[in-house]
Every structure is written in C-alpha cells, then in structure tokens.
C-alpha cells in the first residue's frame, strides 16, 4: 500500500476516535461523592462496631417503614452480637405462626431462625401508611443502585430546602441526590435519633455512615469470605502459572 493511502486510513481512524467523547451529559442528579468505606479493596473488611451501630439505626429508625426480609435474626451473629443479644432482638417482635393443633394461627416471640419482621403486611398496607409511596425492601439496596453505598449515604445526608423555582408536590421532600429530586421519604435521620451504647455521637452523618455500612453488609453477607478465598485462589493460580511457565519454557527449549 502506498503511504498516502495509509495516511488516509489512519486519519479515518483518528476521526472515528475523536467522535467518541460526544456523550450525553444530561445527568439528572449529581454523582454521589465516593466515601472511604472500610470494606473496600482486596483486603477490606467490615467495621464490626459500625455494623452493630448501623443495625441499631435500622432497627430504631428505618424498620418503621422498610423491610429487610432477606435477613434472618441469626445473621446478626455475624455482626459480632452474641447469641443472647441476637435472640433478644428476635424476641422483641411477635411473629405470626401456625396453624396449631386447633387450626388457629397465633403470635409468638421471634426466634433466631425467623426472617426480619416486615413493618407492613403487604405493599398496599405500606402505601396506605406512606402517602401512596412504597418504601422498598433494603436487603439488597446497596447493590440495587449504581454505586449503591455512596448513593445511599448521599441520599440520607442530601436533604436540602427546595430551590425557589421548584414547586414541591404534596407530601414530597427535596433531596439533591434523588433522581428527579422529589422524594416521598421525609428526612429519616435527626440528630441523636439513636443512642449508641458505645458512646459514638449520633450525628446525622455518623448514623448515615453506619447504617449504610450495615446495608452494604446485608446486600452480600459473604463478601468477606469471598475476598478471603479470592486472595488464596489468586495466590494459588499465580504460583501454578509460574510453574506452568517454567514447564512451557523447558518443553520449548529445543525449538527456540
């Protein structure tokens, strides 16, 4: 091929690549700022005291409206609560069970094997109590939104007064990180809404950070196990690959 032709083809390629950055910039809400979560990275683990505090925030604030039905009370053992404490949390709620020998349903205190009790019997009941909005289940919330943990933290701390040019709909609140900005959930966290047994100040930011870490754990309770096994698996394959490379070199030595 003559050089002129080659130059034309290269110019075409460059033009094609230059066209790439014309991406739509119509992002609705600002990107949630990244937070320094302790569980990030290859060796990151959950902060157990933060998880326990986060569970308290969920129990005393969020659970009034939001279910977490993929968790069982037995899962709380993983947060570092002892069995008596976890069983105590379970026993605080009444679970419908039965039928008994008479064919009747009855209520009994919760057990470790029970799922977290839902605040509402069904979606209709939840909507009826929440101005028509349905508070979503939080079990997987940290994975069900893009950058879920950062987003949840931004949302919990993102309530501001509506700009003057915005007409809030009835019963809605303004949140700068919610898509569309108008959210049915009232600002859930208030200063000192929870009293932490370890004396951590219950600021809105602290509570938000802890409850979001709790949500991140709840979305994948096996995350630490996954990384632990992952490190071992990678090291094993790395050594194996080095050996295989040596074998390959030896086998091919006569050819090269």
């Amino acid at each position: 091929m003559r050089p002129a032709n080659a130059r034309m083809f290269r110019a075409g390629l460059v033009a094609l690549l230059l066209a790439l950055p014309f991406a739509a910039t119509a992002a609705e809400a600002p990107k949630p700022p990244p937070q320094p979560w302790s569980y990030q990275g290859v060796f990151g683990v959950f902060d157990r005291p933060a998880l326990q505090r986060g569970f308290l925030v969920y129990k005393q604030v969020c659970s009034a409206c939001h279910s977490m039905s993929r968790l069982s009370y037995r899962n709380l053992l993983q947060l570092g609560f002892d069995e008596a404490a976890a069983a105590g949390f379970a026993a605080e709620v009444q679970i419908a069970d039965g039928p008994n020998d008479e064919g009747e349903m009855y209520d009994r205190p919760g057990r470790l094997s029970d799922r977290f009790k839902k605040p509402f019997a069904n979606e209709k009941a939840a909507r009826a109590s929440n101005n028509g909005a349905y508070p979503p289940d939080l079990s997987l919330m940290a994975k069900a939104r893009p950058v879920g943990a950062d987003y949840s933290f931004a949302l919990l701390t993102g309530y501001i007064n509506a700009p003057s040019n915005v007409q809030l709909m009835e019963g809605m609140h303004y949140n700068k990180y919610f898509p569309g900005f108008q959210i049915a959930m009232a600002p859930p966290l208030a200063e000192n809404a929870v009293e932490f047994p370890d004396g951590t100040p219950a600021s809105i930011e602290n509570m938000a950070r802890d409850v979001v870490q709790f949500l991140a754990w709840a979305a994948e309770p096996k995350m630490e196990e996954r990384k632990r096994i992952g490190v071992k698996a990678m090291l094993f394959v790395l050594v194996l690959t080095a050996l295989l490379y040596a074998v390959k070199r030896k086998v091919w030595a006569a050819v090269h």
Partner: protein
Amino acid sequence: MSAPEFRNGLVRWIDHRMGIFSFMHHELHEYPTPKNLNYFWNFGSLAGFMLVVMIVTGIFLAMNYTPHVDHAFDSVERIMRDVNYGWMLRFLHANGASFFFIAVYIHLFRGLYYGSYKEPRELLWMLGLVILVLMMATAFMGYVLPWGQMSFWGATVITNLFSAIPWVGESIVTLLWGGFSVDNPTLNRFFSLHYLLPFAIVGVVVLHLWALHTHGSNNPVGIDTKGKQDSLPFHPYYTAKDLFGLGIFVLFYFGFTFFAPDFFGEPDNYIPANPMVTPAHIVPEWYLLPYYAILRSVPDKLGGVLLMFGAIGVLFILPWLDRSPVRSARFRPIYKQVYWLLVADCLVLGWIGANPPDGMFIVIGRAATVYYFAHFLVLLPLLSVFERPLPLPASISEPVLKGGGAAGGTVKPMEKA
C-alpha cells in the same frame, strides 16, 4: 500416524477392539500443529475450558434454583446467602459467561486477522459461528433466570423482536412466552432451554474440532505447513503453552469473580422483576451490545431485526466475500488497517448499545452500522481485487529461523517409545 504400541495390557486389549487410545494419541498427542502459533491461538482451548466451567457450575446452581416467578429471585439470593459456597458458584457462573464471550470474541477476531476462515477452513469457521449463535441464545436465557428487573425487561424486549416477522411474528412470540406476556411459562421454558443448549454447544464443538483436525490449525503466517520441519506434536508443546495461557486467563477471571463480581452486571437486576415498573434504560449484557446498537440504528422494526441477525449472517458468507488468496493480515497491508477499523467499529457499536438512542448516539450508531456492513460487503470484495499483498515466505520455518540461529529444521518430537 502408525498406531502406537501401548505398554499397558488392558489398554492394548481395549484399543484392539475400539481404537479410542490410538485416536487420542493421534488427535491429542502427535497431532501435527504449526510450530509458529502465537498466544492468540490459546483462545480456542480457553473457550473450551470456559464451556466446561459453565456446565459444571451451572449443574450445581440448578440444584438450588427454582424456576418460578414467585421464587426465582429468592432462590438466587438463597444461593448467595445460605447455600455453602453458593456465592462462589453463582459469581463463577455469572462472570464465567462474560469470560466465555471474551475468549470467544478474541478467538473470532484472531480468525479474522489471520484469515482462518479461508479455504479449506470454511466449515470450521461456520461451525464456530453456530457455536456463537447458540452461546448468545443460552446467555440471554440465562440472564432471564434470576428474574430481576433487567431479566424481565430484557426478556420482554428481545422476545418482542420476533413479532416483527411478517404474518407469523405474533404467533412466534406467543409460543416463546407460553402465553400473552413474559410470565411463569416463559421462565420455565427458558430454564429448560438454558440447561439444554450448552449440551448442543458441546455437540457443535465436537464438529468444530473435527473440522479443525481435518486440515489442522491455521498459523500467523497463513501458509500451509510444508512438512515435518514446520510442525510440532500437539503434546507436549501446545498442551504446555495452552496451560500457561490458561493460568493467565484464570487470573483475570478470578480477579473479577472474587474482587469485582458485579462489574459486568446491572444494579437493576438486584431488584426483583416488576411488570408494572419499567427501568429507565433497558440494556442487554455487554457481549450483546453491538447487535443491540445495530437493532436500534434502524428506524424500522423488521429492518432492525434483519440487520441485527444479518450482522452474524454476513460472517457466514465471509469466506466468499474475501476472495484474497492470502490468509494472514501480515501480508495484506490494506486489510491490516481496515481490520483495526472494524475492531474499533465494533467497540463503538458496543458503546452506542450501552447508551440511550437519542441525539449524537443515533448518528454515530447509524454510521457505525453502515461501516460494519460496508467492511464485509464492499471493502473486502474490493480489497480482494485491488490489494497487492506482500511476498509470502517460502515456508513457516523460514521466517522463524531467520536470525534464529542454529536451531535446525527438525525438532525432536519428544514422543514416547
């Protein structure tokens, strides 16, 4: 080629009655393979490895999965939380799909670069494309099984495509759905087919290998082997090379599986399927994005569907579109450049497919679609006539040995007695 003399008496006894050991010795051990294959030739065996991984992890996942609209999502979460190592099975399987496609796409583009589709390997190429089509169907149906939002809406969008077929389209869609919307019967038949099709893939892989072993591998120079000095026995040379490549590949595969397992996934699929709520953007998995971009580039539904299938279809007739007698792009100066333009074009199509179809995305998507087909239907036939290839080496050994010193033309085959 002669039957090997086996030392083990039982092996000899069996082999005399059913030549399975001779066959394996012939096809896996002494099988003559060009000596100059580079690491791009690893991706065939890597794809085969991924197929096995997918089938094995899939069988164990199926033991714990419930194909019912009320239980599918819950059963997947139970696998993640309560089944022993269930999270590992699921992440190996979900990321395995991506890495299966990565291996297959590199394998396919290697074939494009080195002209591996040309005479006498046209059937080998077409069987590979059949595998690709089966893989896409299998992957699509597998993505539906967790019954998340993207599962449901992806299934709705893709199955609806068939309604564009004149006269019978609506009936075909009803048949696919097992009803009048994507619902429990759809999930049931998709699960059944998702379990069935991988074994169909295994069958076509056997045919693919049969076709491969008829004329042997192509090679980076693209000229036929001219004798013993050009080839090596498959074992131990290429078994050793493939295993090393496998180690590298698995490092990447495990890296994603264990440290970024949701990288290839969509957050929306962690929301249980809800027929009453449509996600803002419905996107397929990354490996289907270029076809999705082509589909949406055409304003007409039937036209879009035809062009989308045509994107694969045109590859089936590629051996007759590219009439250049030279296989390897190394000796085709212009083809080498349009090849990389095609790679860029496919990446652009994938990027367009991931974005909503409006504004500049439509314009770029259409241009990229037109270029994709122009590459095969216009550029390649023209190049077959007008391109002047560089002089080919006399044999495979010639460029290998040039400056290589005294290695000599013959290599000890390292065969057992």
